[in-house]
């Protein structure tokens, strides 16, 4: 290294681990799009998203006009007294929107947050569930 003085704080140039949310938000700070799996079972749709560092009380899930919007906020206060010396990833809030079709029973959506993974269970309306048809 040719530099005479060493910089103490280094931010790594690295392929971003997270995708930044492109839209404009009213809250200060970065917003990321959480990595999400969408899986369908016979009875329901399961949406699982990675939101590490988010507390249960800071998650808001809104359903309006068939759009399901998840907004998960990070509490930055534990970082207040810490001095960063080496960083590889950035920290920010999470947001993502999904259009929910009418096969979902919107009254019975269930959400669990465990180990930084938010799992939404969207039950299907009975008409959309598979049925075995007996030959009469």
């Amino acid at each position, binding site marked *: 290294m040719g530099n005479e003085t060493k910089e103490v704080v280094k931010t790594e140039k690295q392929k971003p681990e997270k995708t930044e949310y492109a839209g404009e938000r009213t809250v200060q700070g970065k917003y990321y799009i959480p990595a999400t799996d969408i899986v369908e079972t016979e009875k329901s749709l399961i949406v699982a998203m990675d939101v590490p560092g988010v507390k249960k009380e800071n998650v808001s899930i809104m359903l309006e006009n068939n759009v399901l919007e998840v907004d998960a906020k990070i509490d930055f206060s534990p970082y207040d007294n810490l001095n960063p010396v*080496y960083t590889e990833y950035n920290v920010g809030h999470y947001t993502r929107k999904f259009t929910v079709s009418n096969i979902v029973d919107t009254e019975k959506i269930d959400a669990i947050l465990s*180990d930084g993974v938010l799992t939404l269970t969207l039950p299907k309306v009975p008409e959309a569930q598979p049925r075995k048809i007996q030959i009469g």
Partner: protein
Amino acid sequence: MMMPLSRTLETLLTLQDALEIAQNTDFFDNATTSRGVYPPVNIFEKNRDLVFVVELPGVKKEDLNIEVKGNTLRLSGERSIAYGKKTSYHRIERNAFKFDRTIRLPNKVESDRVKAEYKEGLLVIMLPCAESEKPKKIAIQ
């Protein structure tokens, strides 16, 4: 096993990134380990003690291993994803993975007093600086 083309490119790009990072930092000096490996870590300092923060969503506490030896810290573990049988996938962005990363620490730590906690998918390791590494104040006679 056939690898899809996009996966191959991804692997090459990750390797390139790791090499570029290796050239652009001097935090780890000339150590051979530590850089650009999963999981990404953020390192903080507080009164000479080191605080490591690692995002590991969906990893179970019992699947996490943390070892401190001399001035190295080793993090290993795995994340498994299972949705049960009879499922069809619409979108898969989260991966199951195994990781094993060794990080060289800039100073010796008090290994008996290392504390780690895993909450909300965030692993926080507190590594107190060894007494022998702390600067001593010298009184003028």
